[in-house]
């Protein structure tokens, strides 16, 4: 700690100047009965070298996805992030700044976030985007409460929203926590056997405040039926679509087929998986939602000389001004990760994004082509997929994944963890980082697994 405290050894000089005797005088206002007795029972301080060495040893006990063949995704996607993103984002002027409350000395981050808003707006096909929420799950949850704020007064199903029954229980849990305070009822929508949304079930959502669906859906299915949903639910029910942003290099922007709010996990653009955080939540919407939406927004303005300048705007929605009547309690968000996203998007450009989406789609297609020929493996949904798809295997998914793990493969996600009645399905995720060799290795091991099942049966 000696390297962090410039005034170690100067305490007496400073105290004396103030007319104080010792450090204790600075804490004379804290009553004795609430004082700690003795030193903190914690380990002794370490040097930078010791910390780095411990970090390498302890984190080295984790098994990184890159050190194995991995097919685990289920909401987080392992993409390549260009080196310049990491190099630039650690510039101290970005890294060590606070929220840009003093715009005159924060133009860099303000402009970068205004550009981020512009990039996201174009990506999802809606005119307005904020500069990030915490992650995809809180963005989805905040979209539901926002939809209720906008539509509840005129809705025939006030304070009610509908969510796809395929939504991951973890995300659902976040939604429930965010919605319960406003006494919002969350109802679920059914799906067909091929994984697509049941449009008859959707009819029940007409007159509610909002509908949350994902494209691709949680099982990787690209659902053309979503282009008809806005027509079914009507003008006064918000269509909220959750996206995997890389897919939008090939897949139509939801704003172009009627989505009122688009949310999503921004991570695949700009951020490593990092054990699930920090990530960044995308939140974009159409004009009727602007004044009731959550999160910070940057606007372009001018300074007193008429020079182009940027500042935070529409702050009267926020907690530091509106307090308990704010549209959300969010203050600290994920600006720096959003900045990484902006840098990645800037490097990709429109054609690079298309190519990246294509590489993701091709890896998925190849995996389907190989696994459909693999003995004992069945692809659950006869549908187009992006990034991932569910397979059914012989025996239990849990045991199969343990077998694959013993053979150096992180085999995917046991869907029984989301849907407890399912015991033999695995969500296989591919990304631009998946190779043909990876897919062949998975197929070979699944085939071995199947043959072992035959022996024991």
């Amino acid at each position, binding site marked *: 700690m000696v390297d*962090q*405290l410039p*005034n170690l050894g100067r305490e007496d*000089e*400073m105290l004396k100047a103030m007319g104080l005797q010792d450090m204790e005088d600075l*804490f004379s206002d804290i009553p004795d009965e*609430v004082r*700690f007795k003795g*030193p903190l029972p914690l*380990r002794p*301080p370490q040097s930078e070298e010791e910390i780095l060495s411990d970090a390498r*040893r*302890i984190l080295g*006990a*984790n*098994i990184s*996805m890159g*050190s194995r063949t991995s097919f685990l995704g289920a909401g987080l996607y392992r993409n390549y992030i260009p080196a310049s993103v990491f190099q630039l984002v650690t*510039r101290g*002027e970005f890294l*060590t*700044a*606070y929220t*840009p409350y003093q*715009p*005159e*000395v*924060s*133009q860099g981050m303000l402009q970068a976030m205004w*550009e981020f808003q512009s990039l996201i707006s174009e990506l999802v096909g809606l005119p307005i*985007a904020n500069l990030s929420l915490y992650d995809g799950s*809180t963005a989805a949850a905040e979209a539901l409460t926002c939809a209720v704020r906008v539509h509840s007064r005129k809705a025939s199903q006030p304070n009610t929203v509908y969510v796809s029954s395929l939504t991951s229980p973890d995300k659902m849990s*976040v939604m429930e926590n965010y919605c*319960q*305070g406003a*006494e919002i009822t969350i109802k679920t929508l059914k799906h067909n056997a091929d994984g697509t949304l049941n449009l008859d079930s959707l009819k029940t959502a007409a007159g509610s405040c909002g509908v949350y669906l994902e494209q691709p859906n949680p099982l990787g299915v*690209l659902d053309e039926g*979503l282009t008809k949903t806005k027509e079914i639910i009507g003008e006064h029910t918000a269509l909220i679509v959750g996206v995997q942003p890389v897919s939008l290099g090939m*897949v139509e922007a939801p704003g172009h087929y009627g989505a009122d709010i688009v949310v999503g996990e921004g991570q695949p653009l700009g951020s490593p998986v990092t054990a*699930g955080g920090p990530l960044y939540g995308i939140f974009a919407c159409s004009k009727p939602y602007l004044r009731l939406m959550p999160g910070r*927004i940057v606007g*372009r303005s001018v*300074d*007193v000389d008429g020079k*182009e300048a940027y500042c935070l705007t529409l702050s009267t929605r*926020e907690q*530091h001004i509106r307090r308990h009547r704010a549209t959300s309690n969010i*203050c*600290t*968000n*994920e600006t*720096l990760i959003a900045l990484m996203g902006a840098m990645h998007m*800037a*490097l990709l*450009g*429109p054609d*690079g994004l298309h190519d990246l989406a294509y590489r993701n789609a091709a890896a998925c*297609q190849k995996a389907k*082509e190989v696994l459909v020929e693999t003995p004992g493996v069945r692809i659950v949904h006869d549908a187009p997929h992006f990034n991932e798809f569910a397979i059914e295997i012989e025996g239990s998914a849990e045991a199969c994944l343990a077998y694959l793990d013993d053979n150096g493969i992180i085999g995917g996600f046991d869907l029984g963890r989301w849907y407890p009645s399912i015991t033999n399905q695995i969500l296989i995720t591919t990304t631009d980082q998946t*190779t043909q060799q990876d897919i062949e290795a998975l197929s070979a091991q699944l085939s071995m697994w199947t043959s072992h099942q035959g022996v024991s049966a």
Partner: protein
Amino acid sequence: MSHLFNHNGAPNTGYSQPPSIETATKPSIPKGLVRRQRARWPRLSEPEMVRHYTWLSKRNFGIDTGFYPLGSCTMKHNPRVNEVIAQLPGIADIHPHQPEHHLQGLLSIYYEMQHMLEVCAGMDQVTLQPVAGAQGEFTAVRCIQEYFRLKGDTKRTKVIVPDSAHGTNPASAAMAGFEIVEIPSRVDGRIDLDALRAVADETTAAMMITNPNTLGLFEADISEASKIVHDAGGQMYYDGANFNAILGITSPGLMGFDAVHFNLHKTFSQPHGGGGPGSGPIGVKAHLAEFLPGPLADRRTPTAGEQSTAVDEFWYHWREPVHSIGKVQQWHGNAGAVIRCWAYYRRYGSGLTTMSEHAVLNANYLRYAIHKAAREEGVDHLFVDGAETDVAKHEFTLSMQPAKEQFGISAMDVAKGLLDRGYMAPTVYFPLVVPECMMIEPTETESKDTLDTFAQHFAEVLKVDAETLHAAPTTTPVRRVDEVYAARNLCLRHPFDE
């Protein structure tokens, strides 16, 4: 000016990609879902992109640029080894759904951080899941809500907050469905126990308060406040935004609190990143522990087959609390931030007490130095302490009301004058209970020399005539920005040709 969207010269892309995997049939998108028009994104080569963001960075002020005395925000130095550690594949390239035997390192660091925060806060159980201070507040009041629901105590629908509280306190409680009862502070900025007694009753679920408070004063009556709330059957919630002042000196547990959130991006140096990411773990007493969001990191003596990748003699595993409120973030919180803060904690260990002592030493010294410099420059009549006190804690407030009344110089004018001298401005107009407030928090990061120089510059700013100060800043990338224009002429994205 460099505009991202004005870059359209690059015919290709800023990063080349390897060819895609060959497939028997082309990957197809359903006809009705094919994207018809590509996003109108700019086209930059890598050198153009690097130069654009470097140019932007030069128009931004961070702790690395200069002194950042932003009250309530604890802008301390961010050690760079923490960034190196956060990029190691053992954290950057792991997935939260990997099995426990793949994540022994992560689990052990989570366990160590939970334990350290429990010790410092005097709490029984910590969860690292909330990703920001406000989310920590929300999580804790949700736990308190479920605690009362399980007890069948359904009348407790109100949360008490002092009028000097951070805006997130009432916003978080309201989001959980509570009614907010605001109580006034005394004229000296401290909690009014009579006002608290008047509102604490069988409808009180909790009181939310920070100590030291937002004026940088320690609430000496805190034990009595806890007693009043507890006697009424309510819970005490500690807003940990000002935790940097008290580590190893006192703790929320000793003060009688039941729940607390930490801002790891303040106290434990996760970089603020221009607004985030943060990390907002919460700690609770035993009676609330089983309501926390899961999973929590736990450990046991290993059984057969559990040692292969262990980092020490324990087997680490996740645990789901019995009455958990569920999740507030989809995964395990901001793990990358937790790792950085772990590295920061390791730097201090039991010396965290010294860190807090120096934060308080610096705040008091700066308050002294500003008054001294102002006297020497003959401008000490232009401001007063925001609150009468012998000692402040990690921050202090000044009121520019005299300058406003005598010369029309506002706190904002002084703030802008400081920008011209190469400083980030202190927090202005918060807390609202101090008129023309400037809230100053130097942190332990700053040397005595920096504090002396800043104090001198502060006094010099006050010698500047009102007209010149109204026009400040003049040396920054742009001058005062018209926020009214921004709100009236909304331009929230690149306009293209529209």
